[in-house]
């Protein structure tokens, strides 16, 4: 039997009817056609499906859909800046060549967003720790770390 969930998605209140076995990623991709969030391993290992729930990064492939009621979810679609411009964080990934195939990128960016929201001046060690749960098979991570440092710098300049 389908049950209704009400939650805040990228700042907008939404209502979705879901089945008991569905997961947050199913709600995003299937019910709401928000395909920015990717499913990689489906086991919480790769982090491609990372979104932010109530301020914390989580694997949406392991998150039961019915648990999302009353919570606040941020996905990659919610990150863009004014006039559909990329956010500072997204732009830093582009500028630093931190994207190749791009499949891991939304998850990477959401993990970094959760980090920078709670720690605006992370050390390289803290950046690496925040990205422990996000695999990238293309870039070798070096450009990603550079992008995070650049984004942190730009965000501090803007604030």
């Amino acid at each position, binding site marked *: *039997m389908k*049950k209704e969930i009400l939650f805040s998605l990228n700042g907008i209140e939404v209502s979705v009817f879901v*089945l*008991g*076995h569905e*997961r947050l990623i199913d709600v995003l991709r299937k019910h709401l056609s928000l395909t920015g969030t990717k499913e990689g391993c*489906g*086991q*919480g290992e790769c*982090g491609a499906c*990372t979104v932010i*729930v109530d301020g*914390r*990064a*989580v*694997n949406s*492939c*392991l*998150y*039961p859909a*019915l*648990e999302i009621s009353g919570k606040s979810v941020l996905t990659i679609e919610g990150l863009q800046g004014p006039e559909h411009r990329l956010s500072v964080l997204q732009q830093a990934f582009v500028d630093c060549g931190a994207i190749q195939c791009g499949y891991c990128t939304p998850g990477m960016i959401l*993990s970094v967003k*959760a980090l920078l929201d709670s720690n605006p001046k992370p050390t390289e060690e803290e950046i690496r*720790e*925040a990205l*422990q*749960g*996000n695999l990238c098979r293309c870039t070798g991570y070096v450009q990603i770390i550079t992008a995070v440092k650049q984004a942190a710098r730009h965000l501090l300049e803007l604030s």
Partner: protein
Amino acid sequence: MKRFDYFLPQSLEEALELKKKIPNSRFIAGGTDLMVQIRGGELKPSALISLRSIPDLSSIEINGSIRIGAMTTVTDLIYNPDLEHQAKLLVDAARRVGSPQIRNVATVGGNLCNCSPCADLALSLLVLEAKARIQSLSGTQDVPLQKFFESPGKSCLSPDQILTDIFIEPVSSNTKSVFLKKGRVKMDLAVASVALLLEMEGEICRKARVAAGSVAPVPLRLQKVEVLLEGQALSPELADLAQRMASESVAPISDIRGTEEYRRQIVGVYVKRGLAQILGWGLV
């Protein structure tokens, strides 16, 4: 994936009643292991009964002794301002659990009830001599954590019981501890791990607690090593003996993450390294 129903009871009684009523139902905590097992077809529950909406299960209270609600997330252990001082070993182990995304959702109770031999929190809680509070419709009982784990994936809980809280006593000020874990990369499950706690009086070890992970069917206290160390002046020679004894008193298996021999070796080295770190002998 096979379909199942999902319930969000608002009280322990409601959760226990649902469990009794629905055949082949399972409790779910953070779900970071359970959801994987269901997707992999290893588990086929008819319904999941979530413990996330039950008040009080996810709080930490420090009032003389320490009470940790079973639904407390691993991240909440790490960021609790007092726990770092009162039970540093638990916080050290919490930092080594999975990835940030897993730590944000995985719970203390889930880590224990999963009964994995490699459970990071289980080791530190064994060494801290934690008690598990278990509730059923007929009442409450406290069980020493050492009696909680029965075999891989199996705890002492019967289907009509819920683990609600963990209790630990704060350690004395002359206590030092260390948590060491071997994984290929940081977010891996442990190939082998050791938690070590020493209560010292000058050079004499008054109390030693040692536990090892991924080296037996359950998270294991190494009581022979504890007896060897207690009441003794700790020397590098005694540490060598402890290393040998630790390697010999475990029963690891060979699997995809490591061989039996390697695990024995790591546990021995980590016991010695832990002693060296606590006693300031430099790197071993």
